């Protein structure tokens, strides 16, 4: 079947064939997984040679890849969504089958099903951790940092001295690694969640200041002249010209910082907590070789991170759409 798939692209796009290939590959991989699970259950020691399984998985993966190739043609909505979803499913199933076939100890690399089981078993702990890491540390720090950054940017635009004196430092400090800052702040503020909030606020502050100043100054001189000739007050000029011009820049900074906020909250937790948070969980479980919990924590963090990013993006689209 694989050889036929290779010669297919010449024949042009054939979505139905692609779907068929994908179904074959998915069902095949699923079958392999179930078979391997059965084998592991029936015999106490199942270490058959790994390579026949590897060949099978590779063949099915190639079939699946050919299917993805067929499905990905054209400009339809399905052609844009299905390949990504199929790739994820294929990848997860192949990983599951290979990890089982080679008997990789689950303490080293847990299979996707083990991770899902751990996710379900530890859901209350992980949700509480996520509450600490995301709501108390990342979100609060993000809001504080963004507001402070905006205030600082307004001051910097109003007083040129500040812009010239402070902004170069902000640009420099934005390349300071967060891990070096974290221990110092945690020693100063304490082990509780508030120290992590401070760290997140500091790391969000710099991109917001830099981009907001840049945006506030990006207003076209023509518009500013126009406002001047209308004898508009500085407040009016600000509200009508400068602020709308700055919004795209500010949202870019917010989008970048939204991912930074969560990541930095997790990293900061590596340096000391009172026993809560996803970063704490990851660190403690790596030490105990509970890697399925680690992966489950990463899955939780990823879902939160992507959702937060998408929410900011949605807010951006709504706001900018209304303005324009």
């Amino acid at each position, binding site marked *: 079947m694989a050889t036929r798939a290779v010669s297919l692209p010449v024949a042009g796009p054939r979505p139905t064939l692609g779907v068929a290939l994908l179904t074959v590959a998915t069902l095949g991989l699923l079958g392999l997984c179930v078979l391997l699970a059965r084998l592991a259950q029936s015999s106490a020691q199942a270490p058959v040679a790994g390579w026949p399984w590897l060949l099978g998985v590779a063949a099915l993966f190639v079939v699946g890849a050919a299917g993805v190739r067929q499905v990905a043609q054209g400009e339809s909505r399905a052609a844009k969504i299905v390949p990504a979803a199929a790739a994820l499913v294929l990848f997860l199933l192949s990983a599951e089958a290979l990890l089982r076939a080679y008997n990789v100890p689950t303490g080293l690399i847990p299979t996707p099903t083990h991770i899902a089981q751990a996710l379900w078993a530890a859901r209350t702990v992980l949700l509480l951790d996520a509450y600490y890491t995301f709501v108390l540390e990342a979100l609060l720090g993000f809001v504080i940092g963004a507001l402070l950054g905006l205030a600082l940017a307004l001051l910097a635009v109003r007083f040129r001295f500040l812009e*010239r004196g402070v902004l170069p430092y902000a640009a420099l400090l934005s390349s300071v690694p967060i*891990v*070096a800052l974290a221990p110092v702040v945690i020693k100063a503020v304490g082990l509780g969640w508030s120290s992590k909030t401070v760290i997140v606020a500091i790391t969000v502050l710099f991109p917001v200041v830099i981009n907001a100043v840049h945006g506030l100054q990006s207003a076209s001189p023509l518009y500013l002249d126009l406002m001047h000739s209308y004898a508009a007050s500085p407040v009016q000029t600000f509200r009508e010209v400068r602020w709308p011009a700055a919004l795209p820049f500010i949202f870019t900074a917010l989008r*970048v910082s939204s991912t930074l906020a969560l990541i930095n909250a997790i990293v900061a937790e590596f340096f000391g907590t009172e026993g809560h948070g*996803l970063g704490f969980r990851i660190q403690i479980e790596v030490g105990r070789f509970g890697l399925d919990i680690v992966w489950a924590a990463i899955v939780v*963090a990823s879902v939160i991170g992507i959702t937060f990013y998408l929410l900011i993006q949605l807010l951006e689209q709504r706001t900018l759409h209304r303005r324009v």
Partner: protein
Amino acid sequence: MTTAAPDSPLAAAPASRSRRASNAGPMLAVAALALLLYWPVMLLANRGVAQRALDSGADLGCKTALACATQLRNPVIPAPGQFLEGFRALTIPPTAPTSAPYNMLVTGGETLLGLSLASLLGLILATLLVRSRSFERATLPWLIASQTVPIVAIAPMLAVLLGQYGVQGFLPKAIIAAYIAFFPVAIGMAQGLRSPDPLQLDLMRTYRASPGQVFGLLRLPASLPYLFTSLKVAATAALVGSIVAEISTISFSGLGKMLAENSRASDTVALWVIMVYSAVLGIALVALIGWLEKGVTRWRPAR
């Protein structure tokens, strides 16, 4: 502002750099003000700790809490004298394996090796992304999503895993640094490989250039500015990655190992010194990439 810069937090850096000469005065004034403010803030922060130590009957060799604030063994914020003393102790001699400059070089080397690995991998992946649309559609959404995933969280685990399979010493840190830097680099490179406009591509066609020539003579050079922009963004992340990797593996040198040691020993002054060194390293890495960019992409007009 001609490149991918508007989407990066470093966007404003070139503009402010070109005006640095006129910024010297205000920058110095702000630095002086910060130094002036440092003293009272330090006293205020340390006073409570000093008072508690005095109340518990510790013999600090001083009478009032305010006087003790500059002499605490574990201050919240170190006094300038303490900081300089700690700085001297960790810096001299600079070649000793326990000194901060030596460890800074180790971590910097790991990060640079990681960044070069990331560039190589990024180039390969970006070429695939540009050449095959089905590959792009199948993987690009996950590549973008992975940027919002706390990849650093995987670093401790990856370190353990690599150690299990016998990868030890310098390499695991570089691999983790590469792993973190690799996604922004791949996406930046893909954007760069696509950046030549149709006119230029048409010109190559009229010259009857082979696909290899189009790639080597047009697409690759056009992607270099994008590569450097994303490397600048990735450099700090990669540095964070190698430090976290040093913390979570058994390592005998590097800033991460120093951080972990002094964090466990609650040596606040040393932590401050290491923070300054890490800051210097982070800034130096970004500056190095900027310098390389200037050397490599000479044909671009100065911004």
